[in-house]
C-alpha cells in the first residue's frame, strides 16, 4: 500500500496533567521526536475527557484523537482513569460500530517517566492514521479546508 506522504493528519492528544502531559514534557526534554501533527491539550485527568470533545475534534476535521492518562492504579485522583477507561472503551466501540476506523481513536497510559513511550506511541498513532488517510466519515463538511 502506498502511503500518501503529502497527507498531514490532524491529531488531537488529550493528556492528563500529572502523568502523560509530564511524559510528553519528558519526551521533549529527552529530545525524542514525534510528528508535529500531534497537538496536545492539557486536561487535569483522563476522566475529564468528554466524548463531546472527541466528536468535536472529528467534527472540526481531526483525523485522529488519542487520550493519554496515568497507568491504571496510578491516577493522581486515584480513580479517574478507571472511569475514563470504561467511557472510552464504550465510545470507541460505538464508533467502530458506526464504521469509523478503530485506528483513529486510541487510549494509551503514559506515566511521567515514560517519555520514550510517549514518543513511540505518537509515532505509531500518527503513522496508523496516515495509513488510513483523511477522516471522511466523521467530519463536518463545513469545516473542510
Amino acid at each position: 500500500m502506498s502511503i500518501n506522504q503529502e497527507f498531514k493528519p490532524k491529531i488531537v492528544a488529550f493528556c492528563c496533567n500529572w502523568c502523560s502531559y509530564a511524559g510528553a514534557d519528558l519526551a521533549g526534554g529527552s529530545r525524542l521526536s514525534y510528528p508535529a501533527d500531534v497537538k496536545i491539550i492539557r486536561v487535569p485527568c483522563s476522566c475529564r475527557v468528554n466524548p463531546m470533545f472527541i466528536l468535536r475534534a472529528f467534527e472540526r476535521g481531526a483525523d485522529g484523537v488519542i487520550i493519554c492518562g496515568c497507568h491504571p492504579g496510578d491516577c493522581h485522583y486515584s480513580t479517574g482513569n478507571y472511569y475514563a477507561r470504561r467511557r472510552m472503551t464504550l465510545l470507541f466501540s460505538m464508533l467502530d460500530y458506526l464504521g469509523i476506523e478503530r485506528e483513529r481513536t486510541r487510549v494509551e497510559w503514559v506515566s511521567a517517566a515514560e517519555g520514550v513511550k510517549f514518543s513511540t506511541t505518537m509515532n505509531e498513532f500518527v503513522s496508523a492514521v496516515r495509513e488510513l488517510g483523511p477522516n471522511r466519515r466523521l467530519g463536518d463538511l463545513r469545516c473542510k479546508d
Partner: protein
Amino acid sequence: MKKFLKSELTALLNAISEKERVYLPVSNAGQTNYDIYNENSKVDLDTLKTVKSAKEVFFPQSETLYTVTKVDKKIKITQEELEKEEFVLFGVRGCDVKGIEVLDKVFLSEPVDSFYKARREHGVIVSFACNEPEESCFCKAFGIDCAEPEGDVTIYDCGEYYFWNAKTEKGEALTEKLASFLSDADEAPVKEKQQEIRKITGLLPYMNISLDSWHGEATSEKFDSPVWADIYKPCIGCGTCTFICPTCQCYDLKDYETKNGIQRYRCWDSCMYSDFTMMAHGNNRTSQMQRFRQRFMHKLVYFPANNDGMYSCVGCGRCVDKCPASTNIIKVIKAFEKEEGVK
C-alpha cells in the same frame, strides 16, 4: 388533457432531469421523502404521504444565508446565492400544494423572503391526485379536493396511464418540453376516477370535521378556554408535528463557525420547543400548555385573522399519523367541540 403510459414514467423523469432537477417522493431506508431524482432513485408515488411534506423544496430545513469571513482583522460578508436554475417538483398531493400556498402568504408578502421567492419562481409544481386517501386525511375540511389538486400540472392515476393536465403557463411550458411523451387524451376516465375518490372521501372519519367555531375572531374565546390545560398533557414537546407539517414556517437563525468564517443559517424551529423564541429575559411561553396552545391557535385562529380567513392547516393528517403521544389537531378540535357542545 394529455396522458402517458405508466411504464414511460422513468423515461419521462430521465428526460426532465437531463436539463433540470426533479424533486419527487423517493424511498430511502424504508421511508419516503422528497429528494432529487437520479437514475438510482427508488421513486415512490404510491405512498400517499411523504414523511416530510413538499415544503422543504422551497423552504429547506436549513439553509445558509450568508458567510462572514475575516481577512486579517477586517470582516467580509458574502451573501449566499439565490436559486437561479429551473426545477420540477413532481408528485405533490393536493394538501401539500395548498401548504405551499400558505407559505406564499408568509414568505411572499412584504418583507419578501428572497430565498423562498427565488425558488418559487424557478419551480414547476406537478401535483398528483390522491387515489386512496387515508383515515387521517381531512383536507376536505379546508376546501381541498384531493381528486383535483392545484398545481402547474396535475397528474391523475388511471389504470395503465397517467393523465396529465397543464393548468398554468409554467405547466404548459413543461408540457411542451415533454411533448414526445404525451399524447392527447379524453378526460372521461379522469372524471370517473375522481367520482370514485370523492366517494371514499365521504367515508373517511375526519373529512367532514367542522371548523365553524375556528376563525380569526375567536382569539380570546379560544385562548382562555380551560380545555387547553387538559389536552396538552400528553405532549412531550418534541418537534415532530412541526417538522412534518406542510405549513409550519417558523425558523431560527443560527451561526456556525467553520474554519473559514461564520456561516449564518436558518433552520426550522418548533413552537413546541421550550427554547422557542428564547430571549435574554427568558421565554414568552413558559409552560408546555402555552406552547401547545400557541401551535393550534396559530393554525386555526391567528393565521386566518391575518390572512383573510385562510387556515394554516391543510388537513394532510401527518401529525395525526406521527405524534408520539397520539395527540393532534383533530383531538384539539374535537375536545373543543365537546366542551362547546356541553355549553
